[in-house]
């Protein structure tokens, strides 16, 4: 009882949480800044860019799945609609690509709001089925409306231009995507550290108790569903403009599963986990190509073993393993100057 000064531990833990947030962001920025030293050619740059784009989707999806505890098996639908929306406005209607990107993302936000209202009343498996249905409808429409989408063969997408300058070349894209990823992580962490973030985690913990505290679960679920759809749509549009080409496969059920897998693999309710999951599961298949026909078998095995031995996901497990060692190091560093 004598030690329960209250303000003291709370203040120090708050400072620690804030510090961890800033340090994590600084570490991510440093990693992005230093990574080019280890990227020998355009092909490796391309993989890094895809990691970044997937990571942006996963950071958004993690807000919904990891923090608010609501499943979506249709996020590739939002990704695909963002991609095709921007591609079609730019290619067929001659919009400047930055405007088409913004318009497509805004339209997807509106759509997510409209479909989220009825389906977010569902829970668990039923919500999974409903979002799955949405994703399948989107991929079918994209594949069959071939006069505007180019059908299963896909369509060419004009390059991104910002203020009249075309964004081209792997290096330029790398820095653009890197900056956007840092911004995404910053925004996601801000949300989680706010009263709204707590409300989301609360309704994940117990919807009854959240309601009894005045938290309108339906409204919070809807708003985070829209936010996560915006992350997916914007990353989708960027992917289309970067690749210069888009096919309905990017909106497919399989891609939705890939995205959720990245989030779970990296560690739910962990923003860096989402980034790490996207990084590992985007690069691993590239390394596994040396195993030729066994590639998918090995990928599956890696994922199964990870889930068996690290059910919390990669990032939380690593943090727990390395955390005490890091703390010791910090404590030692703090002691030295005195």
């Amino acid at each position, binding site marked *: *009882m004598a*030690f*329960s000064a*209250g*303000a003291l*531990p*709370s203040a120090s*833990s*708050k400072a620690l949480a804030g510090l961890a947030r800033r340090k994590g962001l600084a570490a991510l920025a440093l990693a992005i800044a230093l990574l080019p030293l280890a990227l020998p050619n355009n092909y490796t740059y391309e993989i890094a860019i895809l990691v970044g784009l997937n990571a942006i989707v996963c950071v958004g999806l993690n807000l919904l799945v990891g923090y608010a505890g609501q499943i979506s098996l249709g996020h590739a639908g939002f990704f695909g609609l963002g991609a095709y929306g921007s591609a079609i406005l730019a290619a067929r209607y001659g919009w400047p690509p930055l405007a088409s990107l913004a318009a497509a993302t805004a339209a997807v936000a509106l759509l997510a709001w409209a479909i989220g209202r009825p389906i977010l009343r569902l829970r668990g498996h039923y919500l999974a089925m409903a979002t799955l249905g949405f994703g399948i409808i989107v991929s079918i429409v994209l594949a069959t409306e071939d006069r505007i989408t180019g059908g299963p063969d896909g369509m060419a997408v004009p390059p991104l231009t910002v203020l009249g300058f075309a964004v081209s070349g792997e290096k330029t894209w790398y820095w653009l995507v890197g900056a956007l990823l840092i911004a995404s992580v910053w*925004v996601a962490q*801000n*949300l989680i*550290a*706010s*009263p*709204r*973030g*707590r*409300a989301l*985690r*609360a309704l*994940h*913990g*117990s919807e*009854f*108790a*959240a*309601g*009894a*505290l*005045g*938290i*309108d*679960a339906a409204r919070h679920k809807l*708003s985070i569903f829209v*936010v996560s759809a915006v992350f997916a749509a914007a990353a989708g549009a960027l992917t289309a403009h970067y690749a210069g080409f888009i096919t309905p496969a990017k909106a497919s059920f399989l891609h939705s599963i890939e995205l959720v897998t990245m989030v779970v693999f990296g560690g739910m*309710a962990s923003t860096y986990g989402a980034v790490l999951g996207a990084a590992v599961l985007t690069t691993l298949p590239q390394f596994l190509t040396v195993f030729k026909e066994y590639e998918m078998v090995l990928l599956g095995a890696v994922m199964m073993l990870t889930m068996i031995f690290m059910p919390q996901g990669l990032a939380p497990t690593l943090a727990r393993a390395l955390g005490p060692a890091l703390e010791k190091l910090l404590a030692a560093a703090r002691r030295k100057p005195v």
Partner: protein
Amino acid sequence: MLLRAENLSRRFGGVAAVQEVCLELEAGAVHSIIGPNGAGKTTLLNMLSGIYRPDSGRIFLEETELSSLPSHEFAAAGIGRTFQNLQIFFNMSALENVMAGRWLHERCSLGAALLRLPGLARAERRCRDAAAALLESVGLGRWLDADSDAMPYGALKRLEIARALAAQPKLLLLDEPAAGLNATETGEIDALIRTLAARGITVVLVEHNMKLVMEVSQHVIVLDYGRKLAEGDPRAVSEDRRVIEAYLGTDAQ
């Protein structure tokens, strides 16, 4: 009159869990609802907190009608509660549980949250201090930063009360706060309820521990088979013939 309920009824399939129950709860008092298992106590509490919508009947808090509003509106109007089966946010620390309870008073817009606008840091500090003080006040000072899933059962029971208090309710519904607690812990709950009443919070207590009920309440309501059997001050109710029969059977003399 803080809360008035008129003819509340609720059925589950063929079972009439609560039938035509009327309540008038005076502000500032401790009201207990007792009755044998299955008498409808928790169903009644769930209607008073908006978790169940009554099949018929009306609920007023002061002069505002709440009746069939969703539960978050009941909370916004000033009704807080705890749960018989713990509904702790096990994905958060003890402190975060109580901070989540401050939502009605420390909310923020989506834009302010995403961009971490300047006012937010100050509001968060205020929220954290208020939550820490509340945990102290229920005797959980040493658990501030504990993961809630690492806390013992007795502490979780008090954590739920602290979290409900964080919303600053006018009326606090406690669903079996002493269930599963030992004598010492029950004594702590007893003292806590008295402190709440002294601070002017109206309490509705659903509880099987008769000693606790008789000690802390000014008003006791007895339910049996979903109907109100008797009500009054603890002494009158404990001597009521119908109440003794309901608890002990008709042959008890």
